[in-house]
């Protein structure tokens, strides 16, 4: 088959594919009609003009091989450029057979359409082979080129690095712009200085051992997420990792040990967007001279170490805080669980005790693990981080927490904290006190202490405190002042009552509360409260007998009431204006003061004490009654007998006096007898 083509440029290139066995001095010709050799050429290319870089005059002859063109040069050219051959932009689809050029040292096949490296095995002196911008899919056909030093295979379609075994002298290997997914089969290239794998499909970097001379490694524009083995490259100075997928320094941590590295680029990676990028890299790679093509100054290095230290501190601190929080959370959970158990009062407490013990043990172990972490964390607290959050006392069974203006108590054990010595400043700042998982009856007992130790506490919050009756709110009256009250429905059945808010407003009217459960207290609310319970107050104060009044009120009030006593004593039962006014003078609260709350236990204790007295009284009264009835009986008996007795007395007397003379004698006799 004859093919002819004429390319009009400095280069006279004629291709001829011929089946004729004769060696003709023919030019490479392309047949217009039937382009049927194993390459791909477009028809319209045939008309185009190309200029070659080198301006070689080459003649290609038909070969004896069925489909390969043969290349031949004029002898002048052979002498002029005996060691180099340029076949750029020749629309080659195959490597032609190069005859008679065994001295060739440089071969340039740039910008062609070659798909396979072939027909060059005879060029055993080849040092420089350039196959840039072709369509090569596989590295092959190089096994004889033992002298090869520069191999340029950029912009091809190579999927795998292979068949480089014999190229031990390789100095530069350029494989950029291919489809390579893995670095492999390069470990024997101990003279390799430059390796270019940019614009490939690498997802990670490893398997670099053996490249003992590698100075420059270009990995730009890949999909690299981590880098390994770079510390095994003793000569590596420049490493280009721009435009990859590196997001943490840990993924490239081997770079820290790559002591020869002086120049590195990370731009275009996610890591470069991070706030800690620069100083982390500088801190970890002190050997660097240039980062992202900018020189690293001493100042930057110093800043980097300072910032790194600060970061470390912050991390430690936040770790500590999160540990603390976790511990708190666990403790609160534990307290909640104990509370639930307590509330539900499961009947076989014995079996539950075991379970509870094992539970708290588990928790001990849990907390144990977190506690053990703590001692290590006792580092220096950065004074800058004045902890707004102070976990003061954290154990398994209760939790006390002061957070600025809120004191939070979880679990009944927490109430003991009120006995501690609180600094005036801390205690003064506390305006809100929150109780959770504590029985209200227990809280009542510490309210006086609360009043003294936290004088500014104005807002009380109760959650899961077993508030069940309205009476219990009476106990809050002993505080100095309450502005806000929050009773969480959870665990406080009293909130389900329709009247609870009004009762609170009524009983604690002297506090002038602003808010209950977050809603403002309106004038109407106050009026309604008075309307509903005003009479109760009136009855409780004015209709109680005095002694009862006094016994209910404490000593403090007794003096106040002494005055009232005096006036009442003089005018019993008259409630006049004066009294009312005096009541008002003493304070709004006095007429409610009788409404007290004693916890059930105290109450029962009191009743127990009274039992003795009651018994005594009973017996005493019985004795009195017996006496009285006896006396009464005797009286009645006397009443019955008396008339008869009287008559007899009179009769006896009359009978005695009947005879005056004998009576006189008798009397005289009696007188002398007496003497």
């Amino acid at each position, binding site marked *: 088959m004859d093919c002819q083509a004429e390319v009009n440029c400095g280069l006279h290139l004629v291709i001829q594919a011929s089946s004729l066995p004769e060696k003709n001095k023919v030019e490479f010709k392309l047949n217009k009609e039937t382009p049927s050799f194993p390459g791909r050429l477009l028809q319209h290319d045939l008309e185009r003009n190309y200029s070659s870089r080198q301006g070689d005059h080459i003649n290609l002859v038909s070969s004896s091989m069925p489909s390969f063109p043969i290349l031949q040069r004029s002898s002048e050219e052979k002498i002029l450029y005996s060691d180099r051959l340029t076949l750029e932009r020749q629309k080659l689809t195959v490597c032609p057979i190069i005859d008679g050029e065994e001295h060739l040292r440089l071969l340039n096949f740039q910008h062609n359409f070659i798909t396979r490296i072939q027909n060059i095995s005879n060029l055993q002196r080849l040092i420089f082979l350039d196959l840039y911008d072709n369509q090569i899919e596989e590295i092959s056909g190089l096994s004889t080129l033992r002298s090869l030093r520069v191999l340029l295979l950029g912009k091809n379609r190579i999927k795998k690095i292979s068949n480089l075994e014999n190229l031990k002298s390789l100095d530069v290997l350029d494989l950029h712009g291919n489809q390579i997914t893995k670095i492999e089969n390069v470990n024997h290239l101990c003279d390799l200085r430059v390796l270019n794998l940019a614009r490939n499909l690498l997802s990670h970097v490893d398997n670099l051992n053996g490249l003992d001379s590698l100075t420059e490694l270009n990995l730009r524009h890949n999909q690299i997420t981590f880098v390994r083995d770079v510390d095994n490259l003793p000569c590596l100075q420049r490493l280009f990792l721009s435009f990859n997928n590196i997001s943490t320094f840990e993924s490239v941590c081997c770079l820290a040990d790559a002591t020869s590295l002086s120049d590195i680029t990370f731009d275009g990676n996610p890591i470069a967007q991070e706030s800690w990028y620069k100083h982390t890299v500088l801190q970890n790679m002190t050997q660097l001279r240039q980062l992202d093509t900018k020189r690293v100054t001493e100042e930057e290095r110093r800043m980097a170490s300072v910032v790194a230290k600060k970061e470390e501190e912050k991390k430690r601190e936040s770790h500590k805080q999160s540990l603390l929080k976790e511990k708190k959370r666990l403790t609160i959970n534990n307290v909640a669980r104990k509370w639930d158990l307590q509330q539900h009062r499961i009947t076989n407490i014995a079996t539950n005790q075991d379970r509870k013990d094992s539970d708290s043990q588990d928790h001990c172990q849990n907390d144990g693990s977190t506690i053990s972490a703590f001692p290590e964390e006792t580092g220096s607290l950065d004074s800058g981080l004045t902890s707004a959050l102070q976990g003061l006392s954290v154990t398994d069974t209760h939790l006390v927490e002061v957070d600025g203006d809120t004191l939070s108590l979880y679990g009944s054990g927490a109430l003991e904290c009120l006995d501690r010595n609180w600094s005036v400043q801390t205690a003064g700042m506390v305006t809100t006190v929150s109780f959770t998982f504590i029985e209200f009856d227990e809280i009542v007992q510490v309210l006086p202490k609360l009043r003294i130790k936290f004088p500014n506490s104005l807002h009380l919050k109760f959650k899961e405190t077993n508030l069940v*009756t*309205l*009476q219990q709110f009476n106990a809050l009256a002993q505080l100095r002042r309450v502005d806000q009250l929050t009773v969480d429905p959870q665990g406080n*059945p*009293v909130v*389900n*009552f*329709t*009247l609870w808010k009004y009762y609170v407003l009524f009983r604690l009217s002297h506090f002038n509360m602003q808010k209950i459960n977050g809603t403002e207290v309106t004038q109407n609310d106050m009026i*309604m409260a*008075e*309307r*509903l*319970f*005003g*009479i*109760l*107050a*009136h*009855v*409780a104060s004015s*209709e*109680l*007998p*005095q*002694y*009862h009044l*006094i*016994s*209910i009120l404490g000593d403090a009030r*007794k003096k106040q009431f002494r005055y009232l*006593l005096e006036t009442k*004593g003089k005018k019993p039962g008259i409630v006049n204006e004066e009294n*009312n006014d005096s009541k008002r003078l003493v304070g709004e609260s006095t007429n409610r003061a*009788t*409404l007290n709350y*004693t916890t*059930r236990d105290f*109450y029962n204790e009191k*009743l127990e004490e*009274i039992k003795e*007295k*009651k018994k*005594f*009284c*009973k017996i*005493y*009264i*019985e004795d*009195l*009654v017996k006496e009285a*009835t006896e006396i*009464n009986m005797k009286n009645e008996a006397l009443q019955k007998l008396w008339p008869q007795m009287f008559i007899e007395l009179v009769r006896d007397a009359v009978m005695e006096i009947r005879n005056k003379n004998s009576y006189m004698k008798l009397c005289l006799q009696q007188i002398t007898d007496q003497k």
Partner: protein
Amino acid sequence: MLSPERLALPDYEYLAQRHVLTYMEDAVCQLLENKEDISQYGIARFFTEYFNSVCQGTHILFREFSFIQATPHNRASFLRAFWRCFRTVGKNGDLLTMREYHCLLQLLCPDFPLELTQKAARIVLMDDAMDCLMSFSDFLFAFQIQFYYSEFLESVAAIYQDLLSGKNPNTVIVPTSSSGQHRQRPTSGEASMLEGVEAPLFYQCLENLCDRHKYSCPPPALVKEVLSNVQRLTFYGFLVALSKHHINQALGALPDKGDLMHDPALDEELERL
């Protein structure tokens, strides 16, 4: 005051009937409790005040339940106090749950037992849906008979159960008499088909109960009136009817339903506050 019947009773019985000893004992007990305070202003005055308050019915305020329950007068006073203190709640129209009423009771008596309130609520709600809301007047009247006649009601409940199960506690087992046995069998049969018991039979048993027992029970005439209106009735039906009937006059503690919300004296006080 000095009526002949009074003097006819032997001394102990008289004292017991009027519960004089209870008050005496309590007075002395109170005296012992507060001797430091009371000695300040005189024992005579203390006793005056004490018995005055007993007369007025204010002696039961904030006292323990055992004392409040001790005498009928105490009970009536307590009812009256409860009414007076919380009449405003009723006037306001709020409907409250049993627990909330119990709370209000506890404001006046800290250890008032829940069972009594529950029983009172059962009367109002006819033993159904115990979480329902009740009006003040309904609750008050039911509570009245429950509290005042608690022992009586217990016996009535027992009798009712007996009647339901067919046993007639009243039948005297006379072998020859067939009427007694006759009456027994239909009762049991009917009880299983219809609700409640026969009114006349029920009334007979109650009459005997009233005769037999010492503690207070509603006047028999009243009971007869209630039972004469119906053929059959259930236990709670009976109680409801009793509570709504004019039992108030018998007790003398609370005004009638119409007047429940009126109390001019206290309203005046309220205005002043």
